[in-house]
């Protein structure tokens, strides 16, 4: 593992921002500051961080309903993000999209998506653009275990494979689609075995180990950049919170406290901190500094969001057609 220390520290910082951001959202949501739906990424930070550390601004991602982690890792700024969650005019989408639709095409973020499996064909399209006009650029597509049963998964992987598109399909297998466990929604354990059915490589990794994710994603992304086609990368993980904020007892209807606890023990950030200390990449103090820095950045974003105005009603009629 020859990862430059700078990258390692950045991976850490990204994970911390995501965690701290989501914890704030959780709190703001509970206090009624954020309307609508919030699907938090807590516990899955290693995936977005590990994957996106391999990407540049000109690469693309498509995200999901559980998208905050992806877009943060891809470089979204916290202020317009938070403002978007508040539905404010200064948000990424002028407040018109909200949590499930954060996008910034300039940063290569082609949108969170409210349709489970909706992002896969769009990533294929970004892959087409890259192949035709920007060789070397790639598109990464995030989606969940349950969304891997939507027909779009099949059509998109097949299409990308037969046309050798530079797309990396990243399946975040957190074991559930809302309340339906993986065993209830598919009769397989490793989703990556589906890759063979399209003639592309499939890999399963520990999604709570950020360096493993980073390296595996790096390999797949490099392969795509070289024009050798798509890969299916499955990252096993778990969501700590309920499906969305408001899911009773953090999903207590369909999973046990013990299960949740076991995964909390397996925290990707805690694990990485142990690694960082053990390998003397960062000291506890340095890590603490990251948390503090991030905390104040997030607080600024909240202030920004709260002080921003709602969009004027006339905005309702804007952007229907270009």
């Amino acid at each position, binding site marked *: 593992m020859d990862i430059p220390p700078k990258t390692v520290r950045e991976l850490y910082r990204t994970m911390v921002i995501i965690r701290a951001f989501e914890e704030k959202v959780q709190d703001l949501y509970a206090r009624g500051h954020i*309307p*609508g*739906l919030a699907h938090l990424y807590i516990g899955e930070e290693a995936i977005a961080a590990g994957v996106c550390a391999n990407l540049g601004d000109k690469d693309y991602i498509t995200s999901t309903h559980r998208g905050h982690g992806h877009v943060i890792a891809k470089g979204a700024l916290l202020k317009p993000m938070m403002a978007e969650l508040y*539905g*404010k*005019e200064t948000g990424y*989408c*002028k*407040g*018109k*999209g*909200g949590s*499930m*639709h954060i996008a910034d095409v300039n940063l290569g973020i082609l949108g969170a*998506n*409210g*349709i*489970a*499996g*909706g992002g896969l064909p769009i990533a294929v399209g970004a892959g087409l653009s890259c192949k035709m006009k920007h060789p070397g650029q790639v598109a990464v597509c995030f989606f969940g275990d*349950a*969304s891997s*049963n*939507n*027909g*779009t998964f099949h059509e998109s992987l097949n299409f990308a494979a037969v046309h050798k598109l530079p797309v990396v399909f990243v399946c975040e297998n957190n074991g559930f*689609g*809302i*309340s*339906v466990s993986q065993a*209830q*929604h*598919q009769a397989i354990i490793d989703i990556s075995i589906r890759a063979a059915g399209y003639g592309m490589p499939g890999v399963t990794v520990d999604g709570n180990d950020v360096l493993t994710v980073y390296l595996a994603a790096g390999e797949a992304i490099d392969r795509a950049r070289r024009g050798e086609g798509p890969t299916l990368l499955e990252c096993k993980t778990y969501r700590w919170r309920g499906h969305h904020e408001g899911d009773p007892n953090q999903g207590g*209807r*369909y999973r046990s406290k013990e299960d949740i606890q076991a995964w909390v023990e397996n925290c990707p950030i805690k694990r990485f901190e142990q690694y960082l200390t053990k390998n003397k990449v960062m000291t506890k103090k340095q890590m603490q500094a990251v948390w503090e820095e991030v905390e104040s950045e997030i607080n600024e974003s909240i202030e920004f969001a709260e002080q921003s105005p*709602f*969009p004027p*009603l006339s*905005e*309702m*009629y804007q952007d*229907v057609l270009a």
Partner: protein
Amino acid sequence: MSRIITYAQALNEALAYCMDQDDSVFIMGEDVGRYGGIFQVTAGLQDRFGVDRVMDTPISEAAFVGGAVGAAMTGMRPVVEIMFIDFITVAMDMVVNQMAKMHFMFGGRAKVPMVIRVNIGAGRGTAAQHSQSFHAIFQHIPGIKIAMPSTPHDAKGMLIEAIQDDNPVLFVEHKKMYIDKGEVPEEAYTVPIGKAKVVRPGKDITVVATLNMVAKALTVAEEMAAQGVDMEVIDLRSLCPLDREAVLASVRKTGTLITADEGCHTGNMGAELAALVAEQALDSLQAPIVRVAGPDTPVAFSPPLEQAYIPSEQDIKDAVARVLEYL
């Protein structure tokens, strides 16, 4: 008989009743089992009827809507839940080309007795892909009944009716109504699909409304009554069969028509009613037909924009004012 329950509970009772009566009836959908459905409409049913008859499905709307078609053709009476109407788009071939057409295409030899439950509506901050109200498009696809109950009472009676119907029924609920309460008899009963209901007789102005627009129209009617305007409010209750007679009769009486439905303005349910009247009761019309509807935009997330999207009592009042100019 003066028992008060919610719209969601009324639906739940209808499901339980039908499953109890007929072992051909079963439920499929995402999170309808232990979770009880995202809006708790199927709560408790899996415990009572087992996992085979209250099936949690993978995220595969095409497979389970099409699965319902296949099951219905072979003797079952499936009731499918699609979490938001927005997602019916992933199963649209199964709805439009299979479910709606089998009976006709096979010369009447196959029946497709199934129900697809969906919900429409903005107001929960769920943005453009979870707040649509495009139910009217199914009017344009022959072969599908479309039920739209506006009260807990009708929710129960129409769902029993829908499940017992030999046709595919798209059962359109409104996500803001699940917690609405109303009187619902404990025993089973049916409410026909295809019969509008005059919920407030009046002689001056006709309002034809659907779902939660009915209650808004009634509120406005009471207000207007105080001002001496006697509004007739009709709960359309279904888009197919469309109770043309009920609408025409009212319009012939009042000489006016206001339609109220949450779908976007262009191509909505009101368009068809307006066309019907312009075709068959033009002579009676004394004022322009006015549609109270959502604007021709996606639903925005931002709370003030979302609120502005939803057709309101004020919008109905404005429509009434416009009509009154001509009377």
